[in-house]
């Protein structure tokens, strides 16, 4: 066994060195493909994170009738307080909303507005952002309520866009992963083809298939791993220095996670690619 390990080790590295141009080509192929895969993964994560942050800003506003009685206002307050889907509410009096309206509306309109015409309101944060529309449907018909507004439509549109984006990125990553697999398979097949004589001699003198296979698989594994490391470097550098909006910035943990995926992909591409590539040279 020890003899074999030494043989496999020696053989792997002498193969890598002897076919260094091929090795460089394979490593770069994997690096380019995996950079794109890694980039796609990061974009997918960034999109998810950004959508999460946007949703965190979701507010439901319960507008009371300007004429609503104190009783009605406090009934709504208790109702909101006991709703589990509502996290927190702040009451804005008519005077406070009047000040806000004056800031927001253009001068001709705000100058004719009086405090009595402005509705008071509850500004609520839903426990789960996507539940905003539930608050709306529960409260809309209560007495004293003028209107419940929630950015339902925008959120749903946004979620749809993000979901489509994620699917596109994942599909892109899948296609790139596959193309990297085919490219490394081809590279290793060429490397083996140039040494088919050696393989045939090995078979002739009674080497077992695994004996022949392992150095090639190790070779592919190392090529894939090197490619993945280059790709990780490129993606991390891009993520660190490219001026992305902060919502898109990922935490170190997320970055490490996506890089781990890339590393595993590289190793898998390399070993599986070479295992497939050598298969037909072993059949006699």
């Amino acid at each position, binding site marked *: 066994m020890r*003899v*074999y390990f030494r*043989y496999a080790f020696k053989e792997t590295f002498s193969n890598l060195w*002897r076919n260094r141009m091929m090795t460089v080509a394979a490593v770069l192929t994997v690096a380019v493909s995996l950079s794109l895969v890694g980039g796609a993964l990061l974009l997918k994560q960034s999109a998810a994170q950004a959508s999460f942050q946007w949703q965190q800003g979701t507010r439901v506003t319960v507008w009371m009738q300007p004429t609503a009685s104190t009783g009605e206002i406090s009934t709504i307050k208790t109702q909101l307080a006991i709703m589990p889907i509502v996290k927190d509410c702040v009451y804005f009096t008519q005077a406070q909303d009047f000040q806000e309206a004056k800031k927001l509306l253009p001068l001709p309109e705000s100058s004719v507005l009086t405090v009595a015409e402005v509705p008071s309101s509850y500004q609520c944060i839903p426990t789960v952002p996507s539940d905003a529309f539930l608050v709306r449907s529960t409260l809309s018909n209560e007495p004293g309520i003028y209107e419940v507004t929630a950015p339902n439509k925008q959120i749903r549109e946004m979620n749809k866009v993000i979901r489509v984006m994620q699917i596109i990125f994942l599909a892109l990553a899948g296609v790139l992963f596959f193309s990297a697999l085919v490219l490394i398979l081809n590279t290793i097949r060429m490397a083996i083809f140039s040494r088919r*004589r*050696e393989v*045939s*001699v*090995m*078979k*002739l*003198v*009674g*080497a*077992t*298939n695994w*004996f*022949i296979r392992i150095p090639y698989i190790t070779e592919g594994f190392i090529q894939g791993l090197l490619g993945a490391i280059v790709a990780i470097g490129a993606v991390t550098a891009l993520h660190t220095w490219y001026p992305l909006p902060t919502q898109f910035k990922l935490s170190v943990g997320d970055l490490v996670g996506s890089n781990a995926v890339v590393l595993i992909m590289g190793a898998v591409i390399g070993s599986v690619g070479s295992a497939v590539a050598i298969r037909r040279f072993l059949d*006699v």
Partner: protein
Amino acid sequence: MIRFENVSKTYKNGTSALKDITLDIDKGEFVFLVGASGSGKTTFLRLLLREELPDRGRILEAGRDIGDLPKWRVPYLRRNIGCVFQDFRLLPNKSVFENVAFALEVIGRPRSTVESQVPQILELVGLTDKSKNLPHELSGGEQQRVAIARAFVNRPLILLADEPTGNLDPTNSESIMALLERINRTGTTVVMATHDKGLVDRMRRRVVELDRGEMIRDQVRGVYGIDEVGVL
């Protein structure tokens, strides 16, 4: 040692390579396999190596039906069979020593065995002083001797040679034959396919002649051509 029982082999394209061959080769025998190109000599050798399986009949080596051998055992079968070819099949980027050592390394022999066996076998084939040379620095005859050293370094029970002198001049052919004879004297069974009439006639060993897949002659102390039998 080797036993063919009603062996037939037809290739997928319809070529009938061997027809109903029954034959026994004893341990330590030296057998010439003669016949025109396409007569089935190479198929005969490929069947012995289990590179092909017969369509009918069975082949026994050392008492075992090699057709029953599971695929993963085939390499172990081949460790008992040395092989020499017309085109030498040396690895061009390895030295003479490495080429021979390769045969031991790939079957997992420890380095100490490699270091004791290889010089011994190189001495047997008379290439001790060329052990560091690369194959392309050697003559054809020398290359074939390296190939024989590689085939024999593992001390196989059987040595197969497919026209080993096909690419060599008469002098080199002689020395290769002398070497194979020497190996045969150690008790190794040698089966040699050849076109070399002169060699066969001089050696006076067992001759098996194939013609379009059929065994038309099996003669104990034979010569190359059937017509010459009458002359003798």
